[in-house]
């Protein structure tokens, strides 16, 4: 095998990141390579657990609720006229406000109780964050 430094070609739509951060390296090599019957192992504190958690997304009610939330959240991005405070106002008006905030807390808990793949994508807006402004 001849591994050379990567060169970029073409029009640039294909992203060619150089694995730099620890997260990239973990993703590429952790648990990869042949296993030999070692005498001792250099153990990695914390890192393995983090990776395993990020990979497990079980099809469950929690997952479905997260998908539903993402689907219903879509308007927050693309609807020009109605902004977040207005929508939240609407929610509060339509029901008993105490109950509403409790329910939202419940969903938030359901959403965040399973370790999810959002952890590896920190840029993504978390469902709980868009809701939190309501109680403030």
């Amino acid at each position: 095998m001849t591994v050379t430094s990567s060169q970029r070609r073409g029009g640039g739509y294909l992203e060619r990141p150089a694995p730099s951060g620890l997260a990239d390296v973990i993703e590429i090599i952790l648990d990869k390579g042949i296993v030999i019957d070692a005498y001792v192992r250099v153990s990695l504190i914390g890192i393995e657990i983090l990776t395993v958690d990020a990979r497990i997304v079980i099809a469950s009610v929690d997952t479905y609720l997260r998908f539903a939330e993402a689907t219903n959240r879509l308007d927050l991005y693309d609807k020009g006229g109605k902004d977040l405070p207005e929508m939240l106002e609407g929610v509060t008006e339509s029901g008993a406000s105490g109950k509403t905030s409790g329910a939202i807390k419940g969903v938030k808990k359901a959403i965040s109780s399973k370790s999810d793949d959002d952890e590896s994508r920190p840029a993504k807006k978390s469902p709980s964050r868009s809701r939190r402004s309501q109680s403030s």
Partner: protein
Amino acid sequence: MTHGVDGEADPGERGTYVYGVVRVDQVLPDGLTGLDGSHVRLVGHETVGAAVGSIYLERPPGRGADLVAHTEVLEALAMRGPVVPVRFGSVLPDDDTVLSEVLAPRLDRFDELLSSLGGQAQFNLRAAYHEAGILQEVISENPAIAGLRDFTRDRDPDAVHPQLVRLGELVARAVDGKRASDSSFVLEQVRPLVTQDVVEPGRAIDQVFDASFLVADDRRGEFEDLLEALAEGMHERVRLQLTGPLPPYDFVGDDAWD
């Protein structure tokens, strides 16, 4: 701390850290160092050799820097010839044990693997949707999803819990369908250009798939050109991200060899 193997004060017992296995005649890069800055050397047995370094057994547990050092050694080795990566963290009592326990019992298997990996490198490809885009697609193509969304969107989530679960389930299923067809579209074109592949289907909303490919050096240009063309053609819906060349981490088998 633990620099060098011939330091004056010996802070404890040492073991032999194993990075990977190469052909015995592979010349290691000058001054190659690995974990704790220790010198990387070759322990040879007939046709194969293990790239190893000394390590103090009493050292503190591994940190991110150790993982990075391990990959850097393997990348340096891969630039010179075929390499079979050994899993991070493997330490044996001494060089003799590396010979007798690792190399000698598996000589044929290493020989075979090094031959089959020669002239090839691994590339990792990640395909991802733009989340808002894929959701827009499934909403506009599925009246049931659009309906449930309208019904639940501004209501108390407690009051519409079953509908929300149903909505999420339908979205998950619709995205699964998209994922399957977009994955085959890409993979059917890529597969003729690669020797082996490992594909992990996506599970988060925006993940299409993660794949590793073993690509022969003389097809690399074609492989990269194809992906560039695919990325350009799909860029409004799907982002393609290619990492490599990498050592063949995903193509050496992952079971214990004993």
